[in-house]
């Protein structure tokens, strides 16, 4: 009898200590250097995921969850996104996190939705991502929220009546911002809007600058990713255009690469970001210190958004029992707030979160926090 009791005790202990493996798909460009934005080989994204897993290891262990991270590398080819999204969907992954930009997010969302696998987009901000509904979870504020702030700056701070928009028409993020910004400006009765269309993959914008010189405007909206935006601003300032420039979160927040491309050219610029390394909240300071210590570099907004999203996913994983895609989706949908490094976020299920954003203004050497915009229902 004693022996049976001992065996039962061992069995219970073993079962209690057995871990459940949760496979998480990491979707990003891990193999190619992008010509439009600086996130070499998905480094900022991957580092933040690793840090989030590390920071939450105790919680995961306690919950008996062992995370297995599987990379889905789609390079710089959008069509590969579809292929990789399908691969991830048909794998044993319980969720996918990644697709750092709007186009991959928009391409992958219907695939994951159809496959009923929860997907978290940490930094994609296209407005349409909020329309996919179930299984789609967003970590970034929407383009709409960004242009609301930018339109206000254009109309009220800069008192601009005529706006020139330089849109990369092969960039979903850019066209989405452009369209939203145009609509938002109407609220301020700014309707004199001119567009110059370009392609994101181009690197020489001399012709664009020459075309812009022929137009009359008070401010230029450059809704492109950081390297493209910097090349455009460099070309226009080189052509003698001194009007202020406006941009969204694509410009980045630290601006090292952005200002490297500009090569010291001076301009006045306003942009939006989710977070800044100089944000002195407790979580932010700790995150910057940990990130720098671990990876010997400063994090950027991709890092911090990925970190918060992964933390959000881990929290959901811990609460989900048993771990299935459907159960995880239910848990994710039930969480409507997160106190992350970027601040407190609130959201309706499957919608972009509401949280503070930062308005940055250019200085001679980089970006500086100009103001903090708090959405209705969100605060630091």
């Amino acid at each position, binding site marked *: 009898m004693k022996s049976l009791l001992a065996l039962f005790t061992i069995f219970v202990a073993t079962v209690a200590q057995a871990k459940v493996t949760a496979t998480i798909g990491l979707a990003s460009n891990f193999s190619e250097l992008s010509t439009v934005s600086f996130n070499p080989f998905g480094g900022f994204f991957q580092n933040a995921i690793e840090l989030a897993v590390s920071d939450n290891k105790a919680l995961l262990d306690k919950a008996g969850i062992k995370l297995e991270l599987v990379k889905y590398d789609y390079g710089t080819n959008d069509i590969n996104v579809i292929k990789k999204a399908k691969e991830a969907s048909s794998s044993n992954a319980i969720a996918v996190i990644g697709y750092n930009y709007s186009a991959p997010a928009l391409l992958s969302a219907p695939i994951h939705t159809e496959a009923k696998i929860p997907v978290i987009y940490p930094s994609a901000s296209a407005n349409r991502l909020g329309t996919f509904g179930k299984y789609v979870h967003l970590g970034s504020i929407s383009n709409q929220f960004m242009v609301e702030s930018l339109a206000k700056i254009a109309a009220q701070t800069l008192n601009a009546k005529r706006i020139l928009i330089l849109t990369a028409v092969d960039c*979903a993020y850019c066209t989405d911002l452009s369209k939203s910004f145009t609509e938002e400006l109407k609220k301020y009765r700014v309707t004199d809007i001119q567009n110059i269309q370009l392609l994101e993959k181009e690197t020489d914008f001399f012709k664009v600058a020459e075309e812009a010189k022929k137009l009359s405007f008070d401010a230029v909206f450059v809704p492109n990713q950081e390297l493209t935006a910097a090349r455009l601003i460099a070309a226009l300032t080189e052509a003698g255009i001194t009007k202020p420039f406006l941009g969204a979160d694509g410009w980045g927040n630290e601006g090292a690469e952005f200002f490297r491309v500009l090569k010291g050219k001076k301009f006045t610029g306003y942009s939006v970001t989710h977070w800044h390394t100089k944000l002195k909240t407790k979580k932010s300071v700790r995150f910057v210190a940990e990130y720098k210590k671990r990876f010997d570099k400063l994090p950027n907004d991709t890092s911090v958004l990925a970190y918060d999203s992964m933390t959000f996913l881990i929290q959901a994983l811990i609460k989900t029992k048993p771990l299935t895609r459907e159960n995880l989706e239910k848990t994710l949908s039930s969480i409507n707030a997160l106190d992350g490094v970027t601040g407190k976020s609130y959201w309706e299920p499957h919608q972009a979160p509401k949280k503070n954003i930062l308005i940055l203004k250019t200085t001679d050497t980089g970006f500086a926090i100009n103001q903090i915009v708090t959405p209705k229902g969100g605060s630091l």
Partner: protein
Amino acid sequence: MSSKSLKQKVTDISIYSFMCMSVIMFTCFWLYSAKKNKITEGQIRADLTANLRNQTNQFLPSFLLPEQEQGMTLILSKIKTDENLEDIRIVKDHEEIPSYFKDCRPNENTVITCPSNDLSLTAVVAPLKEMNTVYGFIFKSKKNSSAANLQGAIEFALVSLAIIGIAFLVIYLRLRLLIAKTLPDSMSQIVQWIEAEIEGKELENISLPFKELEDLKFKIAEVIERANKSRDQAIIGQVTSGIMHDIKTPLHSIVTATHLVAEQETLSPDRPMLLENLFNMCTNNIPFIREIIETTLDGNRNIQIKKSNANLRDSIDKAIILTQDFSRYRNVSVEVDAPEKLFINYDAAQFARVMNNLLKNGIEAATESFATKTPRVRITAIQRESHINLIVEDSGSGFKGSPEKLFRAFRTTKTRGTGLGLLVSKKIVEAHNGKIKASNGSTYGGARMEVELPI
């Protein structure tokens, strides 16, 4: 042998070069045409399909993402400009393909190539497909000439340049060979041939590359032949008349003396005196005739001398005595400035001929200028350490032109004579290892003959 004319040769080279050029050009253009056809068919297809995969990937998001839909037009426009296309468009099926691409049916699984009806355009049609979903087709067409234009122009220029270069090189090498080597070699052959002709050597049959040179050679030969004949006839006439003239006088004296004897009776008291006269005439004139004959013969043969130690002054004095009547008759004053003893190892008999010749020439030359000058001849002999200088100067008009020509056969400034005197004198002096030279003298302003005899 039959050689071609220079003109014909040049023509031949030109034709040869032209034929070479034609063959090379034909070959090049044949190769070029073959390649151009391949360029037209292959290059256009390669150009159109080079970036097709990337382009279809670039277009697909335009179908999948409404945000990027408006990018399609700009992308199409950029591709059209970048690739110098005639047309680019997205089509749903073959009905949207331009009608001049007859039977161009898009394939959902592969890229197809279509020629236009008039073969001036080539098109490719590629499916815009993601997994099993076909969103449409990208249609790109390009002028067949446009791809080949730049490359073709470069190739054509290079080929033409190469052909012209080769042609010029061939022509240049042939002409250089002709002008720098063939012609000089031929001229050199002709000169050698002329020298052989003049020297009467046996002629080798030389081979000349041009008919003109062959003709020239024979013309030169004819001229030499004619010159030789004229010269021979002149020499014969000159020698004959000279000999006849020189022999005529002494022979006439002998004939006259003979007639005087013949006119007398056998027992006539004057007969012994006339016979004595005939004898004297023969004694005095026959050696003179013999000398004329020997001089003539010596002009064409080597002179043998027999040296002995003797007084050269004796030869001088003897020459003056022998020409005494000759000088006196012409009122020419002969002066001598020579030591009494001038012993030297020489052939006195042969050298007497030299002295006679020089003195008689001097007397005759001095006579020619008697109207303006007192006719004079001066003989000077100077004893040197190793030789004796014997100088004969006259008051004549001196030499005109090169005096050295006087020592050639049949050259004379006189109206009569064989023209062999000075040649024989030169031979005799040179046989003594001496030298003889002619110049214009300063003493009387006439000719100056100087003989140098080694002691």
